[in-house]
């Protein structure tokens, strides 16, 4: 009994709500050992229990189970009707059982195997043919899949100088069966787990708990912001002033990014930018309600940008392989015979491909930049693994955070003092770091800061210089920032920090900057000094200056952008500033635009951006060898920026820094398609900038630039519009302004340099042109210049300083072009003045004279044909000489043509060739020329006949018009009598009626018979009208013989109108003759004709026509003739029809 007891799982349904496990256990323990009871309560969404059921594991015998079922099933117990069913075993139980079974089986099999092998005592190869088994007896051979034997290789490791054993069975043919390994599986009890509760929303969601209301995004942003700042603080390992900085999860992410470059791009920069933008917006003093809008826009922007990038790549690929793809989609296309492939587009494919390749390259660089999350520097750090670079990354981060913090703190006024202090500390840190940065850059290129640039050789390439310049810029911006920080620090330390007047700040900058410079050496000296040093370094090398220019351009442009606001004044101020009257001018400038965005505000952006972008550019430089492009880019983008500037001057203030940044970013070429390019460029720059955007500047810029981000831009612009509280604005200005001043000064100096440079360039270009430039100048430079020439007018206002250089360049290139043009022109001229072959010689001159009299009309062009008569004596000899050969050749060609024709007739359908000939003839016929003799064949020789017939026709027409009336009257008069008359005639002329079968004949016969029966002349016409009711012809006929004039042309009247039109006279003649031939038919009825004498003469010609239709009583002859004639006519007609068709067809 016990033996067949086994564990069953029972489902017990319909339990009461307050049932307990113990109850169930008690209840069921009567039947067997209850091992496990599981009560499950189903509740509705309000928590009211609806269903309670239980699973019970019970060790029970079959009989007991039956008993249990029968006893307890459908019984009421504790407020419920029980329902007991056998349930499936719990899956865990089953799993455990299965595993046990498997284990047991395996053990058994193992035992069995060994025993078997032992028993056999043979090496069973096939049994052992598991991948990786060594071949018995052969050392370095292993069995792999399918029993294949592979050698084990001993390979020398490249790096470790170690000999590695390469077991092929481990690498190839090494499929293994999975799933039988039961021994080391996780125990069943560990298979289930519970989600441990957490407070984070994700785990809540996992647990199925959703918060009712959507948490406001603003909050989140704030939180993130805090996090980020905290992260930065942590990264800096500095005491951060930001309240409540939890241990940063962000930092880890930031550290990860170099390792995993792809994923972070998507979210890290975005988040960064979000926060930072948020910060910016907040600092701008606009209500926080605005925050959401730009943030979200930015979010979408970044996503969209990525999508756009992908789409663009795809599209580019598509353009390259479009044809292939097309053809791939369709197996092949069928084209018409006259298919003209678009050669241009097809030919342009290579070009396109190139462009796309380059674009792809650019994008690669862009994506590279994209990949490095937050900072390119981090990548560099990863590469270099130098602590310096590390510090550099940190430095950049600090920069961002600095600005952020500064602005934030400005927002939070109560914290301002702390913040200032913090900033001071940070600036110190920056100073500490910046040397590292510079040294890093110098180490990478060998040319670092300004001091290094001095040492750099003059013959260095432009690209190298560009790199150099970038580095220089970096240092410059760093220094500027440092200086700004310094200025701030003193300005805030002594003062209350809240009231920072520009003047004070400026003064402070002067006073504090210089000592700082003195004490810190190169890095933190006064901007002027920096520039001076730089310029000193660059002294005589124009090319070096150029990079410098470039480096300084952005800043200058930033000012220009602002300058749009207050027009020339800013320029003036800039110039004045060159005189180093800093403080006052600063005040002036700031006073000039009190309502609009402060210059200071713009400048920090520029600072931040420039400093942040430099790392990016480092990376880019490393990857991108094209150095010309930045400038190009600048030009394109500048114009665009300018456009953007125009709509709202206030926005321009914001965006101008952007513009200054963007041109530098633009590294992809392709100015061919400008419009599309613009978008593309934008995207590119987005891509490139985004990573570098740890600071969020780009995020700010991105929405501003991207077309889709227009709304956010508008929001931003409006936010900028809102007049800031004076204090806040001052605060905003405070950090930025000194840097701004420096920038302005630098820009002014830069401008000067540029002007000088431009002049030099001009001179050089002029000289170069004199020398004659080699033609092998790369085409893209020409492009470049083209674009420059195009762009300059557009970008004129935005950056006036750059113009000279550009102009010079364009001019140079223009000259390049010009020279080429001239060359070609001269070639053309030489062509023009070359005497044409037909005008050579004396005869030729004559011909020319002749020709000069006439216009250029081809028809009147004088040929050599015209001359032949005059200069025969000259040409004759030549002709004599040539004729033999030419004749030969001509004969040959003729022969060949004949053969061609024959070949074509055989190979093609013969009709086509013939048809073409016929078509030609047809054409001739159409263009009938009376003067040509051969056209006489087309003239009608018998001119008189048609005339006659015309006259006749006219007559007949008149008669026809007249007669019907007459017949009508008759019809009405006589109709009644006629029937009787006819009946009588029918009786009398039964013999005659037998013959006619067709009506026509009948009619004729009637006409013939009438005279016999009818004596009444008045009745006769009526009879005609009756029998031939609808035929006018009869009337006419009747009329004719009533007139009783003998007509020769009666036949004509029947046949002529048709016959004469369609066929020639000969046919008529033949017909007539035929008619005459048909005469014998008449002969068969001579006796009747005698009776008809009254109306018809015996040989009445009028009867000839009737003869056609007359068939005598037994006249086989006439029938035969008739048939023969119809056949003839039919054949004739068909032939003509065919001919006509053939003639028409080729047309």
């Amino acid at each position, binding site marked *: 009994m016990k033996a067949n007891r086994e564990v069953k799982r029972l489902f017990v349904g319909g339990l009461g709500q307050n049932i307990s496990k113990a109850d169930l256990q008690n209840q069921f323990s009567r039947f067997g050992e209850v091992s496990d009871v599981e009560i499950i309560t189903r509740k509705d969404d309000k928590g009211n229990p609806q269903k309670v059921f239980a699973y019970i594991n019970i060790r029970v015998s079959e009989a007991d189970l039956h008993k249990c079922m029968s006893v307890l099933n459908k019984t009421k117990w504790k407020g419920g009707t029980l329902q007991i069913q056998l349930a499936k075993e719990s899956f865990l139980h089953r799993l455990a059982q299965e595993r046990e079974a498997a284990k047991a089986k395996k053990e058994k099999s193992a035992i069995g195997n060994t025993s078997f092998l032992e028993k056999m005592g043979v090496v069973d190869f096939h049994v052992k043919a598991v991948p990786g088994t060594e071949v018995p007896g052969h050392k370095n051979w292993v069995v792999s899949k399918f029993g294949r034997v592979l050698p084990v290789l001993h390979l020398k490791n490249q790096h470790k100088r170690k000999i590695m054993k390469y077991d092929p069975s481990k690498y190839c043919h090494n499929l293994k069966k999975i799933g039988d390994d039961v021994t080391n599986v996780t125990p069943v009890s560990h298979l289930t787990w519970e989600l441990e509760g957490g407070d984070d929303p994700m785990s809540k969601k996992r647990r199925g708990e959703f918060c009712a209301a959507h948490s406001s995004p603003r909050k989140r942003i704030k939180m993130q912001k805090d996090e980020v700042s905290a992260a930065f603080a942590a990264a800096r390992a500095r005491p951060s002033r930001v309240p409540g900085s939890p241990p940063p999860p962000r930092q880890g992410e930031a550290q990860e990014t170099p390792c995993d470059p792809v994923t972070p791009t998507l979210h890290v920069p975005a988040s960064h930018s979000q926060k930072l933008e948020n910060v910016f917006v907040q600092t701008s003093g606009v209500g926080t309600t605005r925050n959401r809008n730009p943030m979200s826009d930015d979010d979408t922007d970044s996503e969209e940008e990525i999508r756009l990038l992908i789409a663009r790549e795809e599209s580019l690929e598509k353009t390259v392989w479009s044809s*292939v793809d097309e053809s791939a989609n369709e*197996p092949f296309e069928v*084209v018409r*015979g006259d298919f003209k492939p678009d050669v241009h587009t097809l030919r342009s494919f290579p070009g396109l491909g190139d462009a796309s390749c380059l674009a792809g390259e650019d994008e690669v660089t862009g994506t590279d930049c994209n990949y490095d999350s937050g900072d390119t520097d981090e990548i560099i750090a990863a590469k270099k693994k130098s602590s310096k670079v590390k510090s550099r990354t940190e430095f950049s981060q600090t920069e961002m955070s600095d600005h952020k913090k500064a602005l934030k703190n400005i927002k939070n006024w109560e914290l301002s003092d702390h913040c200032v202090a913090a900033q001071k500390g940070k600036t110190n840190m920056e100073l500490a770091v910046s040397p590292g940065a510079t040294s890093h850059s110098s180490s990478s290129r060998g040319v670092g800061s300004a001091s290094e640039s001095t040492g750099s050789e003059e013959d260095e390439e432009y690209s190298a210089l560009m790199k150099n310049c970038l580095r220089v810029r970096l240092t410059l911006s760093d220094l500027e920032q440092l200086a700004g920080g310094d200025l701030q620090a003193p300005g805030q330390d002594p003062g209350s920090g809240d009231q920072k007047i520009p003047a004070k700040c400026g003064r402070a900058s002067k006073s504090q900057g210089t000592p700082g410079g003195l004490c810190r050496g190169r890095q933190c000296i006064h901007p002027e000094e920096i520039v001076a040093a730089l310029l000193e370094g660059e002294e005589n090398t124009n090319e070096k200056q150029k990079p410098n220019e470039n480096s300084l351009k952005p800043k200058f442009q930033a000012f220009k952008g602002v300058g749009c606001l207050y027009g020339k004044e800013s320029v003036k101020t800039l110039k004045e500033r060159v005189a180093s009257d800093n403080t006052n001018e600063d005040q002036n400038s700031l006073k000039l635009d009190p309502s609009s965005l402060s210059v200071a505000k713009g400048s920090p952006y520029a600072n931040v951006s420039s400093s942040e972008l430099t790392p990016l550019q480092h990376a880019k430089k490393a990857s991108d060898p094209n150095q010309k492009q930045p400038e190009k880019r600048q030009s394109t983008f500048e114009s665009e920026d300018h456009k953007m500037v125009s709509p709202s001057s206030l926005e321009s203030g914001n965006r101008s820094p952007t513009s200054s940044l963007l041109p530098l970013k633009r590294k992809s070429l392709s100015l061919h398609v400008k419009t599309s390019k613009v978008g593309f460029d934008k995207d590119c720059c987005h891509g490139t900038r985004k990573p570098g955007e740890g600071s969020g500047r780009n995020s700010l810029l991105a929405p501003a630039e991207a077309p889709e981000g227009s709304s956010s831009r508008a929001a931003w612009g409006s936010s900028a519009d809102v007049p800031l509280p004076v204090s806040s604005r001052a605060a905003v200005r405070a950090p930025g302004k000194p840097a701004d001043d420096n920038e302005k000064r630098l820009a002014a100096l830069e401008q000067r340099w540029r002007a000088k440079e431009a002049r030099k360039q001009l001179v050089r270009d002029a000289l170069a042109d004199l020398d004659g430039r080699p033609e092998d100048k790369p085409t893209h430079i020409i492009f470049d210049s083209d674009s420059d020439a195009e762009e300059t007018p557009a970008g004129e206002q935005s950056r006036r300083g750059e113009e000279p250089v550009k102009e010079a360049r364009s001019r140079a290139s223009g000259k390049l072009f010009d020279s080429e043009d001239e060359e070609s022109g001269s070639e053309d001229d030489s062509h023009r003045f070359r005497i044409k072959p037909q005008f050579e010689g004396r005869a030729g001159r004559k011909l020319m004279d002749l020709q000069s009299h006439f216009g250029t009309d081809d028809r009147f062009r004088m040929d050599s044909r015209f001359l032949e008569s005059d200069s025969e004596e000259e040409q004759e000899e030549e002709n004599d000489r040539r004729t033999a050969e030419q004749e030969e050749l001509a004969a040959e060609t003729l022969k060949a*043509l004949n053969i061609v024709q*024959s070949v*074509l007739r055989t*190979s093609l359908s013969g009709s086509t060739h013939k048809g073409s000939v016929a078509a030609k003839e047809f054409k001739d016929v159409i263009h009938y020329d009376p003067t040509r003799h051969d056209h006489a064949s087309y003239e009608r020789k018998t001119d008189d006949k048609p005339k006659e017939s015309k006259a006749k026709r006219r007559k007949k027409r008149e008669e026809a018009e007249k007669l019907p009336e007459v017949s009508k009257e008759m019809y009405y008069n006589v109709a009644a009598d006629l029937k009787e008359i006819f009946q009588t005639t029918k009786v009398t002329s039964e013999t005659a009626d037998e013959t006619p079968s067709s009506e026509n004949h009948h009619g004729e016969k009637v006409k013939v018979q009438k005279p016999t029966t009818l004596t009444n002349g008045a009745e006769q016409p009526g009879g005609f009208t009756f029998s031939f009711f609808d035929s006018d012809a009869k009337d006419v006929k009747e009329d004719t013989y009533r007139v009783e004039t003998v007509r020769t042309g009666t036949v004509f009247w029947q046949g002529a109108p048709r016959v004469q039109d369609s066929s020639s006279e000969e046919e008529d003649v033949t017909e007539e003759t035929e008619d005459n031939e048909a005469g014998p038919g008449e002969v068969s009825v001579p006796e009747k004709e005698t009776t008809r004498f009254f109306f018809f003469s015996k040989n009445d010609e009028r009867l000839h026509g009737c003869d056609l239709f007359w068939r005598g009583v037994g006249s086989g002859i006439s029938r035969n003739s008739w048939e023969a004639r119809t056949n003839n006519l039919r054949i004739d007609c068909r032939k003509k029809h065919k001919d006509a068709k053939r003639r028409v067809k080729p047309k």
Partner: protein
Amino acid sequence: MRPLTEEETRVMFEKIAKYIGENLQLLVDRPDGTYCFRLHNDRVYYVSEKILKLAANISGDKLVSLGTCFGKFTKTHKFRLHITALDYLAPYAKYKVWIKPGAEQSFLYGNHVLKSGLGRITESTCQYQGVVVYSMADVPLGFGVAAKSTQDCRKVDPMAIVVFHQADIGEYVRHEETLT
């Protein structure tokens, strides 16, 4: 070097007409000058009158080639078109086949064109019609003979031959010594 006999001319023209149809007339009777066919070393050269005159100065055994070789007569007096004629025939081709970039190389190595490589085909190409093979970029690649008509091409499986290889520009490299 001699002019072709009538029979030779016929054979040659029949062959050429397979590719360019009645445009053959344009080859024989050119508006821009007198051109003629000359046979030299069993090869047919398409020569302009000027060159012909110049070539007349060179003795036959020394003359390697003149003008453009259109093809050669085999020992059985069939005419075989050479790839050198492509430049003259391609512009007049009536039936064209464009092959996909992937199949280009295969064709240029002397293989037939499979349907998978067929990019485009003239509409009413009938079977065994001489075609000029183009790349998708519309560069003439050689001569072929349509193994299937256009309609059949639609139906056949991708690995079926649709164009038999006759001559291709790869021969410039492969048969450099025989192309004169």
